[in-house]
C-alpha cells in the first residue's frame, strides 16, 4: 500500500496553553475532501498551519507521501502542499497577475524568469475563479470576495497535491461559495488532489466533503466519513447548541435549534 498523501502521526498541537489535539492520527488520501469543524477559537487555523509546516507541532509529526515534512526543503514542500490563508494583508500595490504568478514560484527554476507556460497557468487559474481580464487590476482595488478569489487562483496556480484551505468561502457570496467549492472539489479525483478545509458552514461540509475532523476543544477530536460523523447529536455537542437534521430535496440540511 502506498503512503497516504498526508499523514499526521501522534500529532499534538497546542497554542497559548490551549490544547487543539493530542495524539491525533490522520490519514488523508488523494481524492478525499476533509472538513475541519469546530467552534470559533478551537484551533482550526492552528491545526491547518501545523499541517502546512508554518508552525512546529508540540509533539508528533506531519508526513507527506511518506516523507516527514520537517525533512523536506521549503521548495519541495511548496510543490506538494499549498495553503489558503484566512486573510491577506496587502501593503504593496501588486497587480492581480503578479499575485497569482507568485504561486508558480516553486515551479520556476531559481535563476529563471516565469515562462509563457507559467503565465498561461496563472491566467487559467484566474479563469477558473471567474476573474478573467483582471490581470492588471491592483489588489487594493478589489472587493473582499474578488481578493479572496485571487488568493484561491494563486493556490490553483501553485498546483500542490495537498490543498489546505482556511475558510475558503469567507467573503464569498452564495453563488461564489458554491462555484469555488465546485472548482476545488472537482480537482480532488482519486489520482488528483486532496483537500483539507476549515469551514463554518456545516451544510457546505456535508455537501462538498467526504470526511470530517471535529475539534471539540481540550484536545478531544472525532473523525470519519461525513455520513457517519455529521449527525445531529455529534454536531449539537460540537457547537454546544442543538442542531436538527432536515432531509431536503438536495440532501440533508442541518439547522440550529
Amino acid at each position, binding site marked *: 500500500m502506498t503512503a497516504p498523501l498526508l499523514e499526521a502521526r501522534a500529532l499534538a498541537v497546542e497554542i497559548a496553553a490551549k490544547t487543539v489535539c493530542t495524539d491525533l492520527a490522520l490519514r488523508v488520501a488523494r481524492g478525499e475532501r476533509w472538513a475541519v469543524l469546530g467552534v470559533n477559537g478551537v484551533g482550526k487555523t492552528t491545526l491547518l*498551519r501545523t499541517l*502546512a*509546516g*508554518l508552525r512546529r507541532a508540540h509533539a508528533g509529526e506531519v508526513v507527506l507521501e511518506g516523507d516527514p515534512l520537517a525533512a523536506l*526543503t*521549503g*521548495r*519541495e*514542500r*511548496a*510543490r506538494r502542499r*499549498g*495553503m489558503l*490563508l484566512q486573510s*491577506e*494583508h*496587502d*501593503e*504593496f*500595490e*501588486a*497587480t492581480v497577475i*503578479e*499575485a497569482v504568478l*507568485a*504561486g508558480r*514560484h*516553486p515551479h*520556476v527554476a*531559481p535563476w529563471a*524568469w516565469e515562462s509563457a507556460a507559467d503565465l498561461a497557468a496563472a491566467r487559467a487559474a484566474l479563469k477558473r475563479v471567474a476573474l478573467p481580464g483582471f490581470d492588471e487590476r491592483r489588489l487594493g482595488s478589489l472587493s473582499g470576495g474578488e481578493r479572496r478569489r485571487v488568493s484561491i487562483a494563486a493556490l490553483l496556480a*501553485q498546483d500542490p497535491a495537498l490543498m489546505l484551505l482556511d475558510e475558503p468561502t469567507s467573503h464569498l457570496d452564495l453563488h461564489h461559495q458554491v462555484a469555488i467549492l465546485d472548482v476545488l472539489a472537482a480537482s480532488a479525483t482519486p489520482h488528483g488532489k486532496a483537500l483539507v478545509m476549515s469551514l463554518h458552514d456545516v451544510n457546505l461540509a456535508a455537501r462538498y466533503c467526504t470526511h470530517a475532523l471535529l475539534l471539540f476543544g481540550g484536545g478531544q477530536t472525532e473523525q470519519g466519513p461525513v455520513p457517519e460523523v455529521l449527525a445531529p447529536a455529534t454536531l449539537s455537542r460540537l457547537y454546544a447548541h442543538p442542531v436538527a437534521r432536515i432531509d431536503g430535496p438536495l440532501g440533508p440540511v442541518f439547522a440550529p435549534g
Partner: protein
Amino acid sequence: MIGTRHAVLLAALVLLAAASIAIALVVGSVAIHPLAVLDALRDSAGGLDADIVRELRLPRAVNAFATGGLLAVAGVLMQVLVRNPLADPYVLGISGGAAVGALGAILVGAAGLLVPGAAFVGAAASTALVLALGRAGGAWMPTRLLLVGVIVAAGWGAVVTFMLAVAPDQRLRGMLFWLMGDLSHASGGGIALGALAVGAAAALVLARKLNLLAHGDDRAAILGVEVAPTRLAVFLLASALTAAAVTTAGTVGFIGLVVPHLVRLASGEDHRVLVPGAALLGGALLVLADTLARTLLAPQQLPVGVVTALVGVPLFLVLLARRSR
C-alpha cells in the same frame, strides 16, 4: 525572460545615470566645457579645469552615485523587512544608528575598517530595535512602526549632537555631515561604488524571495521560502548598505523612500527590476541633488541632505495622506 517594458525601463535609467554624472562634471561654480571634461577624463589635458574635473567633481559624483544607490537599495530591503512602503533607513533611524556607530568609533580614535564596522553595528542595532518594537502581537502596525522609527531617529540625533559637542574639533570633518548628509568631505569613491555593486548584486540574488516576503511571512513560507534565514539575510544586507552610505556621506534622508516609490510606479512589484532600478535611479538622483546643492548658492555649498529633505518630506507626507484614505 525579462519583459520588454522592464528592459526599456532599466536602459532608460542607465542613460539617466550617465547623464547625471555628465551634468555633475560640467556644471559648477566654474563651468567647464563638455569637450574639456572629456579631455580631462582621457587624462590628456593639464591645467586647472582638468584638475577640478579629476580631483574634485568626478570623485564627488562617484560618491554621490554610490551613496544614492546604496540608500535606495537599503530602502527597498527595509520596506520588505517591515512590510511598509514608507520605510526608509533615515526615517526609521537606521542611518542615525550608523552615524552614532561611526562617530563613536572616530571619537575613541579608531580608523580604517573599524569605522564602517562600527557604523554597521549601529545600523544593525537600530534595525533590530525597530523590528522588535514596531510590531504588536505579531502583526505589523504601520503607524506604530513609523512612530518607533522617528523616536529612535530623534534619539540618535541627540547622541550625535552630544558627541559633536564634547568632541575635539580636529577629529571631526564638519558637523552637518553627520546630521544632514554632505558629500563635500567624501574622498575616493571606489570603495563606496564597490559596496554598491556587491550590495545590489546580493539584493538581486534575493529578489524573488523579496517578491514573496512582501506578501507576508506565511505566504512566503507556503511558497517555499525559508523565512527566518532569508529575513536575517535581508536584515544584515540592509544594515550593511546603510552603514556604507553613512560612512561615505553622513545621514542623507529620504532617498530610500522616494526612489523605490518612483521605480515601482514604472516597474511594478518585481524586485528583479526594482533592485537594479532603485540602484540606478537612487544614484542618479543623488548626483543631481548634490550638483544642485553645490551650484544653487554658489560659491556657497549646501549639504545635499538639505536638498533631499526638501523634496522628500513633502512627498512622504503626500504618500502618508494617500495611504490613510
